């Protein structure tokens, strides 16, 4: 993965967390430095909330894909799932 793209994904995650009730205390710097969701202090419930809320925020048209689950334990994985949700949303908008 291109380092610049990873940074963009992490910035997207940080921006989204900042917009969500209960996650405001997590800073962009913490997201940039963290490796796992535990590093950010995110419980499995909170990661699920982030994903469900992100799906809703991007239109609620798409379901969480079962093969994404394995990516949710590390920060790059969470950010990459959000990128995949964006891609699905953009594909739908174009078609």
């Amino acid at each position, binding site marked *: 993965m291109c380092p610049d793209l990873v940074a963009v994904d992490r910035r997207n995650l940080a921006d989204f967390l900042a917009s969500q*009730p209960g996650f405001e*205390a997590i800073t962009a710097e913490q997201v940039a430095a963290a490796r796992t969701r535990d590093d950010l202090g*995110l419980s499995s419930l909170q990661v*699920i909330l982030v*994903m469900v*809320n992100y799906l809703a925020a991007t239109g609620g048209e798409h379901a969480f894909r*079962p093969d994404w*689950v394995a990516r949710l334990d590390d920060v790059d994985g969470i950010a990459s799932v959000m990128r995949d949700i964006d891609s699905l949303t953009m594909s739908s908008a174009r078609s």
Partner: protein
Amino acid sequence: MTADTVTVGSFACELGDLECKPADLPDFEQWWQAESNGADFTTMGCGTFRKMSGPVSGYVVATVQRTLAERGLPARQVDRVVFATTDANLAQVDRDFVAGVLEAAGLVSCVPVLMSFQQCCASVTALGHGCALFDDPAVRNVLVVAFDAAATDRERVRQFALFGDAAASCLISRDGGGELRLASSAVQIDYEGLLGRDSMVSRQQVARDTLDAVLGTTGTSIAEVTMVFPTNLYQPLTSFNAMVAGIHKSKLHFAEMLYRVGHCGNCDWMLNLIDYRDKVGLRRGEQYLSHASAPGFFAGGLLVGV
């Protein structure tokens, strides 16, 4: 599975008689923060929950009476009763429980058994066990009775659900009369989850394995299932758990009962089925999935309208 003439129906429930709001709990905010690590409770899909003001046995008797009254079946004609409850609720099953319930309900020719140690999946297993009892040709009517009530208010507020109190029941009969037939059922264990070491991946795996076992028996795809009646975990969790198991959230019927009564242990799938039956109806030939999850377990039952 059992013969086609064995049907399941007359679902009934008795909710806790006190309607409460989470804010009514004395230290709710403190408990929720401790459980959720700062998540926003208003997004959990919970409105009220029910609390029993008396011993759970009274509610068990009431739901049994409702089930029998709906069928018009005299209590003396029930051969077996399969009770189901979560591990935490076992303490409420004291030495007088069975005798008291059988006597109060008039179940004078009825052999009781208790299904537990499978947390909120116990009643799905109880349904399968109840149907299997029909291998004995002498068995004609079997009650399945699920019940759960939190022992303390602190136990109601958990990381994955807000607990309410309820009892729910149904009747399995050899001579028909029910709306459904149990086509298959399965329960599987997530050993790491039982020990509190589960992960999202391990939970997803046991969910998918269980669904494969339930649906594979009959060659059914999840797309062919009309509606799924799940465990009432917090709304985002229930939706997520379904999605990662390959179930579209549009197939879930739970949100209103979650909002009204919370998570009533192993009663949830029956409460959701009752709500759906009352609003939409259970239709001949359509397939429905009872779908229960708990730390360490996952269970499902495929029910077909008759």
